[in-house]
C-alpha cells in the first residue's frame, strides 16, 4: 500500500541503508506531497531514525537516492530543518536555552559570521512559539526532558525552513505539551510547510497526522492516513520482524564486507 504522488516535495528512490555491514533499511521507495503532517511509524529498530538521517545525508546510503524539492539535498539544505533525538547531545554543555536556539540561525549565517540582533529576535520568537519564553536564560541542564525537547523544536523553527524532519520529538513529553506541539505543527502545515515526524504512539498518530509512513526494516505503507490506517498494515508493521529478512541481515553481518555496496 504505497501511494506515490505527482510533484513530490520529497522523493526517496529505492533507498537501502546499512550500518557497517548491517543493512537496516531495505529498498525504501516513496514520495510525499507538500503541506502535510507526516508520521513515520514502526516498532523499535525498524529504521525510523535511520530513514530520517539518510534523508538528511547524515548516513550515506548503500544504494538509491533522495531528492528534496526536486533537487539534490546539498542544494536545498537551508530549506530543511532537522530535530535530532534529545539523547543525541550532552545537555551538560555550558549553554543557555537561547544559545542553543540561536544555533538554528547558523545555517543561514554560514561560516565565520556571528549571530547578531536579528538572529536573537528570530530565536526569541521561536521560543515563544513553543511556549518557552520564560526560560531564555536558563542553563540547558536544568530543563526537564519535555522542555529540552521544546528547545530543540524551537531551534528547528529558528531555521525558518520549508521542510521539517523531527526524530522522536515527543519522547519524554507530557500529554498537554504533546497536544500543544501537535497544534503548532498543524499550524505550520496549514501555512504550507511540510513536517515529518518519527512517532511512537499509534493513538495520537491517528488523531494528528495527515499522512503515514509505516516501516519495519522495509517500507510497509506510505499514504494518506485514511487509506493506510488499517489492521492489516498495522499488523505487518508491528507484528514482528520478517523472519527471513532478519536471517539474511545476520548472514550479511557475519561477512567481512558489505555485499550490498557496489
Amino acid at each position, binding site marked *: 500500500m504505497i501511494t506515490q504522488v505527482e510533484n513530490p516535495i520529497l522523493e526517496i528512490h529505492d533507498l537501502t541503508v546499512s550500518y557497517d555491514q548491517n543493512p537496516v533499511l531495505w529498498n525504501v521507495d516513496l514520495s510525499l506531497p507538500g503541506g502535510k503532517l507526516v508520521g513515520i511509524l514502526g516498532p523499535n529498530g525498524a529504521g525510523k531514525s535511520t530513514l530520517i538521517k539518510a534523508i538528511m545525508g547524515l548516513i550515506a546510503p548503500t544504494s538509491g537516492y533522495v531528492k528534496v524539492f526536486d533537487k539534490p539535498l546539498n542544494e536545498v539544505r537551508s530549506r530543511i530543518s532537522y530535530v535530532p533525538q534529545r539523547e*543525541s547531545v550532552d545537555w551538560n554543555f*555550558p549553554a543557555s536555552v537561547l544559545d542553543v536556539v540561536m544555533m538554528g540561525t547558523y545555517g543561514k549565517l554560514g*561560516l565565520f559570521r556571528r549571530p547578531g540582533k536579528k538572529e536573537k529576535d528570530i530565536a526569541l520568537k521561536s521560543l515563544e512559539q513553543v511556549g518557552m519564553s520564560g526560560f531564555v536564560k536558563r542553563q540547558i541542564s536544568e530543563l526537564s526532558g519535555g522542555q529540552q525537547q521544546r528547545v530543540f523544536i524551537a531551534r528547528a523553527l529558528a531555521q525558518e525552513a520549508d521542510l521539517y524532519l523531527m526524530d522522536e520529538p515527543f519522547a519524554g513529553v507530557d500529554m498537554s505539551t504533546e497536544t500543544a506541539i501537535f497544534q503548532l505543527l498543524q499550524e505550520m502545515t496549514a501555512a504550507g510547510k511540510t513536517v515529518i515526524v518519527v512517532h511512537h504512539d499509534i493513538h495520537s498518530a491517528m488523531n494528528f497526522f495527515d499522512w503515514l509512513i509505516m516501516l519495519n526494516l522495509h517500507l510497509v505503507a506510505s499514504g494518506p492516513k485514511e487509506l493506510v490506517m488499517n489492521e492489516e498494515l498495522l499488523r505487518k508493521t508491528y507484528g514482528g520482524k520478517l523472519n527471513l529478512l532478519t536471517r539474511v541481515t545476520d548472514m550479511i553481518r557475519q561477512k567481512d564486507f558489505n555485499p550490498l555496496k557496489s
Partner: protein
Amino acid sequence: MEDFIYFFTFQDPSIVWVVLGITLLGIGSAYVGTFSFLDKKALLGDAISHAVLPGICLGFMLAGEKNPVYIVTGAFLSGGVATFLSSWLKRNTKLSEDTIIATILSVFFGFGIVLLTSLQKSGNPEIAGLNSFIFGNAIGISESDLMLYGGLSLVIIVVLTLMLKEFRLMVFDPEYGKAIGFPMKAISFLFNVLMILAVVIGIQAIGVVLMAALLITPGAAARFWTDRLNPLLILAAVFSVLSGILGTYVSFVLPQMPTGPWVVVFLSMFALISFLISPKSGIISRYFSRKKYLRKTHRDHLMKALYKAKEGGKNGLPVEEIYELYPYQKAETSKSIKYLDRSQFIVKNQYVISLTEKGISDAMRIVRLHRLWELYLNESMNIAPDHVHDSAEQLEHLITPELEALLEKRLNYPTLDPHQETIPRENHDLR
C-alpha cells in the same frame, strides 16, 4: 622578596618577554583545552603531548642544533601522525578509544625516549637544552623562540575566536552541524590542528609530560564556577595564565627548578580551590547548604510538634518534653528553640514553650502541606494511608506555594487527610 619585586616589576626585559610568551601560551592552550575537555577528548591531548617527543628529537637530528623551526615542525608532524593514527585505528579496528590512545601515547613516547637517549650518547654539546623538553623550562627560552611560540599562540587565539560558533556546534551537536550543511569534518580537522599546535608551542615551557595538564585543568577548574561558554573560556585562560606566570617565577628564583611541574602545582591549586569552594558545585558550599536545609527541617518538625500539642488542647509544651522528642540532638534542639524565639515564632514562659500568632500561621502551613501531600499520595497514587507519612515528612519542607495551590485545586480544597485529621487553613477555629 627582592627576587619577587625584581620579577614582578618587570625591570628585566627578558622577563617581560617570558611573561608575555607564557601569557599567550596560557590563553591559547586553555582555550583549545577547554573545548577538548567539553568534547570529552582530554586523553587525546595527553597522547598528543607525549607523541611530539620523537618529532622534537628528529628535528634536532636533522638540524644538528636546537633550531626552533625544525623542532616545532618535527613536533607538529609527529603530533599530527599520532592524531591521524588514533582516528584511523578507531575507524578501522574494533579497539576501544582508550586502548588506542594509551597505545599511541606509550609507543610514541617510548620511541621518543629511545631517540633522546641515543642523542645524549652522541656527545653533541647542544644536547643539554633538549632535556628541558621533558619537564619544560620557561626561563631558558630565547627571544627568537618566544617570537615563534607567541606568534603561533596568537594564531590559535584568533582562529578560535573567529570560529567560536563553529566549534561550539562541533562539541554540542556535530550531527546537527552536518545537517545544516557545515563542513563538520573540516572543522574538527582544524580543531585537531589547533590542538597539536597548542601542544607544540607549550612543550618548551611546560614539557611533554605535563602539557596535557595545561590543556585540560584550566577548563576543568573553571567549569565549577560557570555554566556559560564565554565566561568559561575567559576564566580558564585566567587560571592558566596565572599558573604559567607563577610557575615561571619559581623556576626563575630557583634555577634548578623545571617550570612545567610548578605550573601544574599552581593549576592544581586553582582546581582544588574551585572544587572546594565554588558556590554552586563546590563540596564545602554543598555541605553548608545541606546543613542549612537540615536545620530548617528540624525547626519545622519542632513547630509541628507544638502545633499538634495545640490540636490536642495543650497550650504549649515544657522545654524538657521537647528535648525528649529528639533524643541525642540536644544541641540542635536548643539551637532551633533559640532561632525560633528570636524570629518570634515561639515564646518561652517559665520553661513552657508555645507558638505565637506568627508561629501558628507558619506551623499550620507545614502541617497543611504534610497532610495535603498524604492525601494526594492516597487519592491520586493509590498508596495506603499507613504508607504515606514518611514521604510527607520529607516533602512538607519542599513544596512551594505554587505546588501547594496546585495540590489544593487538584484535591478540591479537602478538609480531612487520610488519617481523618483536619487540614488546617488560616480561618481554622484553632486560632
